[in-house]
């Protein structure tokens, strides 16, 4: 049992933590919240005091076909890069976590993660040299290739953590019960690692969506959204459009994260229901 003093002490500690948490969240989110705030401000200049409420920047954004093209490009590249890197990551994670250690496991793991630590500008230039040497035209394809490269370590890390807790005797049990390797993957392995696959898809999509450096070097004339935004910053009068776009992206990613969290909880809670009865 806790003594009264101890309870007081912990209450005090709790208050300190709350202050810290609030300050931390403020530091994280106030700059981000300025985006939607100024996107409704009736002025080209990003400065206080606010001039009045307007939605014209959103209207301008909706009419900006160049921006739409860039957004569409980004979504295409993001989808392709996240799917491809997750599939490759799945194969790699499976091989790297199997019971009989892969020869050169440490080597493979080290090298697959190395691109996390190489500055993207270096990767961007290196890829530019390679891709132009090989003769692939600079396009969304070259951006996609670059994005798979930077997304793959994320996919491998996320999926490996899912596979590490995976009891391989589950796959053996499936084989034992008459299924072949292919059906065993779909009936046992896939459903069990599915939350990891979803996490990997989301994370790699965001890495691709977010990337400026690689796309800047490799996109040629197929501008992606970050490259487009960077270009627009040269024209001050277009800045509010970018703010409106930023706010829209903010809401979209909030919805996406909420959705991912909901899916994750669905996966985690399903088996946990009625746990008390089973205990």
């Amino acid at each position, binding site marked *: 049992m806790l003594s009264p003093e101890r309870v007081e002490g912990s209450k005090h500690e709790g208050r300190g933590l709350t202050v810290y948490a609030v300050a931390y969240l403020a530091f994280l989110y106030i700059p981000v919240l300025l985006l939607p705030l100024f996107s409704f401000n009736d002025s080209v200049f990003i400065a206080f005091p606010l001039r009045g409420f307007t939605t014209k920047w959103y209207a301008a954004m909706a009419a900006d076909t160049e921006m739409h093209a860039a957004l569409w490009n980004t979504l295409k590249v993001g989808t392709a890069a996240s799917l491809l890197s997750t599939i490759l990551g799945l194969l790699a994670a499976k091989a790297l976590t199997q019971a009989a250690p892969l020869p050169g496991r440490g080597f493979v793991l080290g090298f697959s993660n190395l691109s996390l630590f190489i500055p993207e500008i270096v990767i961007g230039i290196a890829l530019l040299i390679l891709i132009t040497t090989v003769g692939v035209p600079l396009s969304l394809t070259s951006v996609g290739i670059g994005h798979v490269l930077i997304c793959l370590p994320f996919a491998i890390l996320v999926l490996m953590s899912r596979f590490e807790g995976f009891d391989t005797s589950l796959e053996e049990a499936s*084989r034992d*019960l008459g299924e072949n390797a292919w059906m065993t993957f779909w009936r046992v392995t896939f459903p069990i690692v599915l939350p990891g696959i979803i996490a990997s898809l989301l994370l790699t999509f965001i890495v691709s969506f977010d990337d400026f450096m690689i796309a800047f070097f490799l996109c040629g004339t197929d501008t992606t959204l970050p490259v487009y935004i960077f270009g627009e910053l040269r024209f001050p009068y277009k800045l509010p459009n970018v703010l409106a776009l930023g706010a829209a992206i903010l809401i979209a990613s909030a919805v996406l994260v909420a959705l991912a969290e909901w899916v994750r909880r669905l996966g985690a809670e399903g088996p946990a229901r*009625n746990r008390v009865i089973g205990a």
Partner: protein
Amino acid sequence: MDRSADFIRIDNVTKRYGMTAAVDGVSLRIGRGEFFSLLGPSGCGKTTLLRMIGGFAFPDEGAIALDGEDITSLPPNRRPTNMVFQSYAIFPHLNVRDNIAYGLRVERLTAAERHTRVEEALAMIRLSGYDDRRAQQLSGGERQRVALARALVKRPKVLLLDEPLGALDKRLREAMQIELRQIQRDVGITFIFVTHDQEEALSMSDRVAVMEKGRVFQVADPKTLYEKPVSRAVADFIGTMNFFEGRIVSISGGKAMVETEAFGRMEAQLNDGGSFSTGARVLIAIRPEKLLLSREQPNTPSARGQILAASYLGDRSQIQVRIPGREAPIAVVAQTAMAFHSGDTVHVSWTPGAPLLLAE
């Protein structure tokens, strides 16, 4: 029941991992409907042998045949064997019903047949009404039973069990031992049971193979294994055994007279397998419960010693006796009628016919 003795034929099977042989030239015959145990300490190769029968590992040498068919290199999904895994391997994303029905999908049954089989299986393991539970909601014993039902619903020719009771607490384990044996009698399927628990192996099995370092030392029914072990290793592994070194003085009529340092001359039975000659150095083995303690010197051969420790276990007492000129104390199990205390001087003798002759 057809007890054809070579329902399963394991011929000279060897499995190496790197330089070490996990299973080293093992040959076994297992009969149809038999409850057969592979017993040995961890790392003795019993699980590797079981996995080769199940198709999860493949022998480097030798062959395995089941019911006349060579299955040595068949994958697990094409063998008429099913396994109960040590971890149970219950699919966490499926409920009890779907776990049990998992293997029936490939069997081309009608929905009604499938339903009947699952219901039968649930009834057999006394978990009717548990259909919708998931693995996380089951206790260890319930998981074990689901794993058993999931394997048996496939109606395999052989059921393989890899230390299935190891994770259960003592009381539950004892209850499951009886239940498992009962189920085996009811379904009449051959069970191959891997365990490191000698009591479990002795109490459940028709026959037991004692393994160590990848080799089979002895295959026998539990009574023979306990009373007539063929080697020191087997005798040591099964229960407690006292060993006395000696030299054969004479052999006649299935018995040998052995000169020992501890007891002088002892008459010992010759083991079936061993061949001994006069003058050979041998071991005499005697179970603790075959030794007798008395305060007065008996008229049979005996040795005088002092009690080192005595522990009272209710129905019996375990007593350690030190005799002069011998380092290891002798283990004796005595009926509790007579009270012995540490420090007492006693005479140790033995039941006639108890000493067993083993090669040194």
